[in-house]
């Protein structure tokens, strides 16, 4: 455990949980106190996950046995490169989304901070756990918190989108349990490392059952990730919720992508014998289709937040395309692209909120409105976000797409990948340019109506600027970051390392 105290791996899970419980106990305390506690807990996560990232960076895989039960019997938390990477993206986006929420969104209803911390509890647990049923439990925790956050503040459209979101996720949870039950029934274990060992020796009699369970799991993760054709819940839910919640939700679809990468590299990877490569025929084509449909949605959107929601769908397409190609370079490209897309989409959601307030009654709809107060600052920030999202140089979106295209050169899908990624990139660029010119240039002149819309405050724009600085940082330190992503991909493609770290000696 060089450098890491024994109990560090569980701290990213415990800290938000304790903060959430304390906040629940202090629910009648002044808002300033609640904000202070919530902010302190979220800020404290950042150095914590950076320490874990540094610890995992040398290739070590820390296994934390809950209750000190040995691996196949007890639940383990595993910090490896992938988990630390996801924790880092979560902690950073959560911090900036919370800073935006402190501008007033958290006062629209009660328990915002409780739900926010519990959401982080669920997210961090999902990334750390090494047990399939525990993954289900953390999924439910993050979903239940997300239901509350999604509906926070109320309103007709929010309730309607929330109902769809809750019902489809409950159906997804049921499928998850069916899949987990089948895997347990056949193998008698739920520890992911132990499952990987057992699945590698699947007998032909059980092959169909294991394949069914594996593909059911894929359907569940695809639902969380909003992969075509299971993405329909996302645009309405993300477009109608409050801005900081939508920004935090940018990481939630990545939970599905993470689960796909973790489960299928570990349990159905190259060493898995007769069930190896279960997803090969599915993931990349579906991801390409998701990218196309998501980008069509971006082009056809009639409001900025709707456009941002479809950009989430399109980014999931790119991400899962990278994971679906399955080579080391492609996975590395996907892992580099993942925090980029989270930060960029979160920045767009936060910025869309400020733009919507500055436009008054026109909100974020794509219709010509009055010149908004603070248009130069808003327009400048929008320009940078749009450059990042469209994947243009010099920002990290370009690097991510470039790495993906280069990795695709060896793939048999190469013409499809290049064609779809480049054409959708162009479409996204055109759509974002059109939105920008409509919002900022084609105005009806100065606003004569009363009341005058509110100009954005610096405090509301600071989180957006912070997220953009992260994107610029991802370009400046692109070398070390892509090196880390590449090392992560190498680690993922050697599941026996994970297995021997969790189970001790390799059987």
């Amino acid at each position: 455990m060089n450098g890491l105290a024994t109990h560090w791996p569980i701290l990213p899970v415990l800290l938000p949980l304790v903060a959430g419980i304390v906040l629940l106990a202090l629910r009648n305390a002044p808002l300033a106190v609640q904000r202070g506690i919530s902010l302190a807990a979220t800020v404290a996560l950042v150095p914590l996950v950076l320490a874990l990232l540094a610890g995992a960076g040398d290739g070590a895989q820390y296994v934390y046995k809950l209750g000190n039960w040995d691996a196949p019997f007890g639940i383990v938390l595993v910090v490896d490169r992938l988990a630390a990477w996801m924790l880092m993206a979560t902690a950073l986006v959560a911090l900036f989304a919370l800073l935006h929420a402190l501008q007033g969104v958290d006062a629209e209803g009660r328990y915002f901070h409780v739900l926010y911390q519990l959401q982080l509890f669920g997210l961090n647990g999902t990334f750390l756990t090494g047990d399939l049923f525990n993954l289900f439990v953390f999924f439910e925790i993050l979903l239940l918190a997300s239901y509350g956050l999604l509906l926070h503040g109320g309103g007709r459209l929010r309730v309607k989108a929330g109902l769809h979101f809750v019902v489809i996720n409950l159906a997804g949870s049921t499928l998850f349990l069916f899949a987990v039950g089948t895997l347990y029934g056949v193998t008698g274990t739920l520890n992911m490392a132990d499952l990987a060992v057992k699945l590698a020796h699947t007998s032909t009699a059980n092959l169909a059952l294991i394949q069914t369970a594996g593909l059911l799991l894929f359907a569940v993760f695809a639902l969380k990730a909003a992969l075509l054709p299971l993405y329909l819940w996302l645009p309405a839910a993300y477009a109608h919720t409050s801005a900081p919640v939508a920004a935090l939700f940018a990481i939630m679809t990545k939970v599905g992508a993470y689960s796909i990468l973790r489960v299928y590299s570990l349990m159905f990877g190259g060493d898995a014998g007769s069930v190896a490569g279960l997803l090969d025929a599915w993931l990349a084509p579906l991801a390409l289709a998701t990218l196309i449909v998501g980008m069509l949605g971006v082009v056809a959107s009639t409001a900025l937040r709707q456009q941002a929601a479809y950009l989430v769908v399109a980014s999931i397409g790119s991400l899962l395309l990278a994971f679906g190609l399955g080579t080391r370079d492609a996975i590395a490209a996907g892992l580099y692209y993942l925090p980029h897309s989270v930060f960029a989409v979160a920045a767009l959601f936060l910025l869309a909120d400020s733009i919507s307030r500055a436009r008054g009654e026109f909100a974020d709809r794509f219709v010509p409105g009055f010149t908004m107060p603070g248009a130069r600052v808003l327009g400048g920030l929008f320009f940078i976000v749009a450059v990042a999202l469209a994947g243009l140089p010099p920002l990290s979106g370009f690097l991510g797409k470039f790495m993906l295209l280069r990795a695709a050169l060896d793939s048999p899908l190469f013409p499809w990948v290049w064609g779809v990624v480049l054409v959708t990139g162009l479409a996204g660029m055109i759509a974002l340019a059109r939105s920008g010119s409509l919002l900022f240039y084609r105005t009806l002149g100065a606003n004569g109506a009363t009341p005058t819309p509110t100009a954005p405050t610096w405090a509301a724009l600071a989180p957006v600027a912070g997220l953009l600085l992260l994107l610029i940082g991802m370009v400046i330190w692109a070398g070390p970051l892509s090196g880390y992503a590449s090392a992560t991909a190498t680690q993922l493609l050697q599941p026996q390392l994970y297995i021997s770290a969790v189970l001790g000696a390799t059987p």
Partner: protein
Amino acid sequence: MEALIALIIGILTACGVFLALRGQTFPVVLGLTFLSYAVNLFLFAMGRLAIGAPPVIADGAAYTDPLPQALVLTAIVISFGMTAFVIVLALKARAELGNDHVDGTHYDEEGPR
């Protein structure tokens, strides 16, 4: 007994899917409840069906698998909480949207409400 349990799970799932696809929120909630019953039975049966065996390790060699029971307990608690939440949400949707259609469709202009 295996065939009977399988039949029950199948019927519960079919009812659940049918009801969950209905257009009004109350049948949808009922359908989700049926689905969770089905999956709880399914999980329980994954420890294999044993009659008259002790629930945890006793003197004899045969015992039922305790793990699925723990899993089912967790799943029941979660699905119970989720059902309570979705009922409250459905009531809120009924209040906010004016009817209990899952899409909250208003028929103000097209026809009767």
